[in-house]
């Protein structure tokens, strides 16, 4: 797949829809270029032969099974929970209606 194809207008439209972002035409052009640059930068990794390297899934190797006991703590008060929310109503966070469509 060529870079051009990867960041066609369709791709940007598709990505912005997935991310629920309303982008202007101007922003789309700008972001297309930036994303293409980032992708080609990462493509340098393809120059290395990694066929014998186990994929890294976690940055800190060897650490495992970090658990906590099943004992409740004191949660935030409703007031604190909503303190930084711009939109709220009757103790709830208020979100735009989103129909998955």
């Amino acid at each position, binding site marked *: 797949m060529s870079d051009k194809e990867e960041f066609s207008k369709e791709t940007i439209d598709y990505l912005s829809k997935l991310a629920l972002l309303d982008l202007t035409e101007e922003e789309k052009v700008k972001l297309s270029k930036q994303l293409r640059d980032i992708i080609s930068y990462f493509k340098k990794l393809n120059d290395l032969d990694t066929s014998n390297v186990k994929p890294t899934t976690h940055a800190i190797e060897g650490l495992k099974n970090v658990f906590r006991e099943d004992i409740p703590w004191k949660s935030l008060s409703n007031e604190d929970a909503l303190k930084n929310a711009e939109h709220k109503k009757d103790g709830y966070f208020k979100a*735009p209606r989103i129909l998955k469509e």
Partner: protein
Amino acid sequence: MSSKYEDVIIGLEVHIQLTNLKTKLFCSCNNDYRGKEPNTHVCPICLGLPGSLPVVNKNAVEFATRLALALGCDINKSFWFFRKNYFYPDMAKNFQISQYNKAGGRAFADGGKITIKLNSKKKELQLNRIHLEEDPARLVHKGSIATSPYALVDYNRSGVTLIEIVSDPVMNSPEEAREYLKQLKSIVQYTEISDLDLDGSCRVDANISIKGHARSEVKNINSFKEVERALKWEIQRQKNLLKRGKELIQETRHWDDKRRVTIGLRTKEFEKDYRYFPEQDLVPIEITKDFIDQVKKKLPEMPNARAKRFQKDYQLSEFDSEILVLDKDIADFYENGVKSEKSFGPDEYKQYCNWLMGDISRWLNDNNNVIKETKLTPKQLVDLIKLINEGKITGKIAKTFVNEMMKGTPILEIVKKSGKSRIADKDKIIKVVKEVLEENPDIVNDYQKNPKALEALIGKCMKKTDGRLDPEITKRLMQKHITEISAKNSSED
């Protein structure tokens, strides 16, 4: 099985909340969110605030292990969590922490099976996998989703532990799906990881197709009871389209439990859109054989094994045993009862089972209740059966006691209060019989042509005495007296 469904293929994804945990999956907020004020069981972790870090609940891993063992799955020795990215206000982080069995990831456990019995035929239904994930928040809409101007979000449920149980596409009818869920519910109850009678504690997505055609995924079936109904509707919809010569498309549909129809969602969510990748804020989990052995030791006897033991210990039929063990609370009640009375033998074991599965279960059903919420004690049922067998009350009268028994009233007190002890005194019964014969000459006449009239006369006797007459003695005496009268009548003719 009905041939109506032989070309139907169903696979189920069941999400079960682990309601018996005390805290959520990745934070220590109280798990018990039901009926609580919105956004009061929340913290920086389950609100997805920047800088907060999740930590896995140890007991969630143990509970998942219990279920995996009970279902006969292969538990993976090592796995890690993934982020499933999507933008919807029910997840504050914009991703759900889940598991993924691709891209190097593994489920919690693979395989397993659930055995069902339908029309006395056994069938083993193969499972694909089970995995752990967090529950999203609850959205409240003013009016309907379609017209509501906004959504209100309550994050109390966000982060509660879910176990997803994915079956292979191996069910061939809505009835098989119903039996599958019945057995799954029973196994979950025995492992004591969740109370599936709680509202909203289980949700089902169903994949449905007609052999050779595209499948649809029906989402949002919010209770086990609704599944059979939703499946029947969706199968009918697909068959109708095919009948009219239309082709089916692969799609996601939504079960509307108010209108009881499935609705096509225009959404096309592809798996790649979720951008699954390993959750870097959580380290991998390793499950050792030692840990599994420890959990195994604590597991109670599972329903299948228990049914086999009931056949042996209480000489119950396979049919009775399998129904009796389905609900653990009922089965525990049964064993407490029959074991407490030394004089009980096979006859009483069967009687006790009949009472539990008959009148008591009917009462629970009619009153939408479960046995542990009533005051009925195993001893009350023991006393009741003893009184019946000693001839102190009739079985018919005993049935009228059920309401009072459920309130915990001791049997002897009920008998005393109702004054309904059995009448076995011959003279008393003869008096009633004679009265009835005198009052009903038409039925007596009828008896000549129709011997069944005898039952009608006995019924009249019972009615007069609130059913207290001993049925055997009454029948004998009635027969004797009516024969005498008939003989007299015919000699007079």
